[in-house]
């Protein structure tokens, strides 16, 4: 919306040209929080709750990825499960069958998933929002069918899933360390901070402006000489890359991949998390993911998981038009 207004005057300078003092302070806070976060396992000693928090932030990473795509391009990736399950399976296949050690297997898994996004993105990114969403869903379901194909069972483990034997170490963490919450936390936390920075930076750049302008009025952008497909493809690939990081983290922590990772329902978790938290900010999806993870755990204990999830979704969406984050920010601004 603001991007449209700016088309009639010179575009505001990106954040880089803001007063230097504010920039340094922002950087300081960011680095400080990142470092401070590494100490969370010392405060949160319960392995169970730390594990829950890890699930929350990994889901948060996926939610940030699709939130970015939705806010900048207006495209919702129903098939987000594709980019959660694909890097997981690739990690398993590279580790088990090609006997690659961790750094190589993980890097290749991430690369493979991003490449898949680039290839399929070229096909789907031109579609209108709802067909786009259905196409990404179709992608995820096709990958799921591939994972359960009898012919590929020796490779993927079929319906029973793939238990991974991870060798070597990634950033100093071997397979055993990756599976324990306390030692896995630093990796997950740093990944989250990095991803949020990337998403924020991409949104607050010319690239982000072009995307939002295209979302507002594609025809006018084309008239003005902008290519409207390439930026969206890039956004799709970036979004898929971020989601792939989440998928890779899940696989590293659990050392297990199964076809359910590619199911629409898995994608549903990230989607609900993103929408409940609010896609308008970078932090919204993270908040939504934390709320969602906590909610799933709390509701599960009652035995009415599905019902309570449904009620919570309806209430949250109906009551908070800008998501939970939007609501909190409004509250904060009102206090000021």
């Amino acid at each position, binding site marked *: 919306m603001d991007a449209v207004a700016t088309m009639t005057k010179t575009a505001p300078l990106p954040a880089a040209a803001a007063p230097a003092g504010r920039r340094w302070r922002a950087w300081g806070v960011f680095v400080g929080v990142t470092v401070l976060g590494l100490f969370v396992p010392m405060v949160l000693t319960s392995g169970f709750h730390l594990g829950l928090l890890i699930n929350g932030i990994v889901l948060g990473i996926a939610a940030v990825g699709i939130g970015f795509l*939705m806010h900048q391009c207006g495209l*919702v990736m129903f098939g987000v499960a594709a980019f959660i399950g694909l890097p997981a399976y690739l990690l398993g296949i590279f580790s088990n069958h090609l006997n690659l050690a961790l750094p190589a297997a993980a890097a290749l898994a991430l690369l493979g998933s991003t490449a898949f996004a680039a290839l399929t993105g070229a*096909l789907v990114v*031109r*579609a*209108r*929002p*709802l*067909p786009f969403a*259905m*196409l990404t*869903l*179709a*992608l995820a*379901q*096709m990958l799921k*069918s591939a994972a359960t*194909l*009898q*012919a590929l069972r020796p490779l993927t483990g079929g319906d029973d899933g793939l238990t991974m034997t991870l060798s070597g170490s990634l950033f100093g963490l071997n397979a055993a360390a990756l599976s324990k919450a306390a030692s896995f936390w630093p990796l997950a936390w740093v990944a989250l901070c990095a991803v949020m920075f990337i998403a924020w930076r991409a949104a607050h750049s010319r690239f982000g402006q072009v995307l939002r302008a295209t979302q507002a009025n594609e025809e006018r952008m084309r008239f003005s000489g902008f290519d409207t497909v390439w930026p969206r493809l890039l956004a799709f690939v970036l979004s898929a890359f971020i989601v792939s990081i989440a998928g890779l983290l899940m696989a590293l922590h659990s050392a297990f991949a199964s076809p359910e990772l590619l199911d*629409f329902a898995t994608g*549903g978790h990230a*989607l*609900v998390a993103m*929408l409940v938290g609010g896609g308008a900010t970078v932090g919204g999806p993270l908040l939504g993911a934390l709320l969602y993870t906590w909610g799933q755990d709390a509701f599960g204990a009652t035995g*009415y998981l*599905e*019902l309570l*999830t*449904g*009620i*919570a*979704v*309806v209430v949250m*969406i*109906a009551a908070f*038009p800008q998501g939970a984050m939007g609501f909190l920010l409004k509250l904060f601004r009102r206090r000021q």
Partner: protein
Amino acid sequence: MDWSQLFSVAQLANALALASLLTILASGLALIFGLRDVMNFGHGAFYMLGAYAGYSVGKLLGFWAALIVVPLLLAVVGAVFELAVLRPLQKRSHMDVALVTFGLALIIGPAVHKVWGTVPLSVEPPPVLAGSVQLFGTMYPAYRLFLIAVGFGTCLALAGWLKFTRSGMYTRAVSQQPHVARMMGVNTDRLSLLVVCLGIAFAGLAGVLAGPYLSVDPGMGASILISCLIVVVVGGLGSIGGAIAAALVYGFIQVIGTVLFPSLAVLAPYLLLFGVLLWRPQGFGRGRVA
């Protein structure tokens, strides 16, 4: 490869039977989308509700009564849906409303569990439709032929309504140019109510019809929703004619797929979606309710 298996009358009828059920469901979904611009992710749940209600009403009053009573009941549910859910959220983004309908589906599911229990239910076809009839040399279940007839009939009735009645004309107008239609004095609120009730009633009708045909269990809503969504998107969002055509194509592809490529048959709907949308991004139909 037994080609006689593929091109037999029985297989043709199989494709039509599946397509008929999908047509009724997809028409309802397309109507709601065309008019209200809402992708109702709860459509499968309403269908399931219809099937379970069909079981209970069928037990009390018989199948034929259920065929009339249940769509009326579901129309009332549709009214509640429109007034309590869709209208208050009118100004919200499409995604938000779609997610609310998704949440509704998550609520209706366990509610059905609670009322009807978790064991799959057995719904019998009425005695006159229970057996098989001679169909060009093979014995074919009468109920499926009935299903095809009802599907065809609903399409005709719907087409007739859209083309020849005033409310049908208003529906087409509002779906194509909502603001102009409103300026011309069409009461869009009342029309929305009518269309949503109709769409949900269709879901209920499909549910009752599905009872003797498929399995009545708590998972039936979710499994048919995806097929329905694919049919509506391939048909061209909001286009009834397109949805019907897409349902037919879907039915045939399923049947052909299971005979020719059994392992890959499950991919067929998605390949259809991909293929059609890449060739013709707006789907079969001419978009909007037409």
